[in-house]
């Protein structure tokens, strides 16, 4: 039972991550490889606040979201000048930089040893410590994230995001400040990613940089693409499928060392299969491999 709850909590964390990435990748059409970095930033800000200042969970969550969105602007701004593949490489670099900072700033982040003993959240006097209460909290945060994302994509603001994805030149010619929209959506997306970071840190009560690597970013992108880019429900489907799938391997009785490698192969294989035969994912509205000759 605990095991099932654990899986559900993980699914919740990944739903938040994929929903937020979907805003930039699926709706605005900018593929970013740095999502795990924002996930990590959120986790570290909350953990450091809680450990050093013993500050309340809600404040930590708030600061993590704000801090991560500010860094999101840092990644969003280059996206105004560099495009497509080059932007992916730039986010790649950002991801690696963040990982290296977390890994090498030993006095501050604990480096590879990580940060142990992160206090569990206390909200309005209620201590969240059981798996079940964590699941409830994750579900609430998932619902809030979904609500925010849904509001955004259904609004005229979201309509502009889709227009930017489809044809940036045309969108500019209609008088929309494309650059401002890109930076804004980057900030929102990275802020929301920080929520899952905070959840992860307080749930596991221990974080180290290896949870926020490039592989993690690729995993989140896989969820978005396989679930369906440009569709919020797709992100939920993607997170459920991709988190559950490797768990099945556990029951086949494979040793852990092999199962871990098979996981990676599975994700890679799935990505290739989807890109070839179902580029829009399970229920997506946008496929990255579509030829669009927009300037």
């Amino acid at each position, binding site marked *: 039972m605990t095991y099932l709850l654990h899986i559900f909590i993980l699914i919740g964390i990944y739903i938040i991550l994929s929903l937020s990435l979907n805003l930039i990748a699926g709706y605005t059409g900018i593929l970013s490889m740095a999502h795990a970095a924002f996930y990590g930033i959120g986790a570290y800000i909350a953990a450091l606040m809680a450990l050093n200042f013993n500050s309340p969970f809600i404040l930590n969550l708030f600061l993590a979201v704000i801090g991560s969105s500010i860094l999101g602007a840092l990644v969003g701004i280059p996206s105004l000048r560099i495009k497509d593949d080059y932007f992916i490489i730039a986010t790649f670099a950002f991801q690696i930089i963040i990982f290296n900072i977390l890994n090498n700033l030993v006095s501050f982040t604990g480096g590879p040893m990580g940060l142990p003993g992160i206090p569990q959240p206390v909200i309005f006097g209620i201590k969240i410590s059981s798996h079940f209460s964590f699941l409830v909290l994750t579900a609430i945060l998932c619902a809030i994230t979904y609500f*925010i994302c849904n*509001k*955004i994509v259904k*609004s*005229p*603001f*979201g*309509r*502009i995001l*889709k*227009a930017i994805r*489809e*044809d940036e*030149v*045309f*969108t*500019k*010619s*209609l*008088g*929309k*400040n*494309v650059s401002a929209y890109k930076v*804004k959506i980057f900030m*929102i997306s990275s802020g929301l990613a920080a929520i899952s970071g905070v959840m992860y840190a307080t749930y596991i009560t221990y974080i180290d940089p290896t949870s926020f690597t490039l592989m993690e970013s690729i995993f989140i992108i896989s969820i978005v693409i396989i679930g369906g880019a440009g569709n919020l429900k797709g992100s939920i489907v993607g997170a459920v499928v991709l988190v559950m799938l490797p768990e099945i391997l556990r029951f086949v009785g494979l040793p852990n060392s092999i199962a871990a490698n098979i996981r990676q192969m599975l994700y890679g294989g799935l990505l290739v299969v989807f890109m070839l035969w179902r580029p829009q994912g399970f229920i997506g*509205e*946008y496929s990255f491999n579509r030829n669009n000759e927009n300037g």
Partner: protein
Amino acid sequence: MDNLLKIQNCNKHFNGIIALDDFSCEISKNEIVGLIGPNGAGKSTLFNVITGFISIDSGQITFNNHTITKKAPNKINKFGISRTFQGLRLIRQMTVLDNILLSFKKQPGEHLENVFFKNKKAKEIESENKRKALKLLKDTGIEDKANDLADDLSYGQQKLLSLLCCLASDAELLLLDEPIAGINPAMIEKILFIITELPKKGKSVILIEHNMDAVSQVCERVIFMDTGKKISEGTPEEVRNDPKVIEAYLE
């Protein structure tokens, strides 16, 4: 007549190719001006220069007494200049209705803060825009396509839609780049009719078109350009009979 757009001594070179060579012209309020010339004469470049997609090397462009030289395309649109593209740009994966809704100016719902707060006003304006958009579609007889993807329209309907987007933006000056090239005669008639009606609504048009009959039909004034220079200007009849124009086409 009142001046709307004033282009003074504009120059633009692309790696030695002269796209605009000391080009000057003026467009008045409520007039339709035809811009003609051979391929590569610099007509589309001129549109890109006016709308800010290409910055000029030298010269000055003013619109309604505002200098718009070297302003960003989105800012220039806000001054009241709207355009269509030669290659026909639309958001193809969006519905026809959404394409038009995207084109309206000053939408409070497009501001992030209004997505979450005060969105009553945003919703009101959105539904008002929707009414206006449906009316535009109804007036041009494609209201049954409102919820189809723009990609599913015929080529002629797509050209009509891009014109409707310009109308929705309520711009004072419309730059139309070959709005009737490659479409069927009935649709040509429909589009030309919309264009001829524009001056009555206080709008001016610059029209790039190779079809001389259509140009004579809708334009009072024609500018002929070649190799980035203005060669001739006058009524369609005058320009057609200008020896310099005939020479340019024979070259």
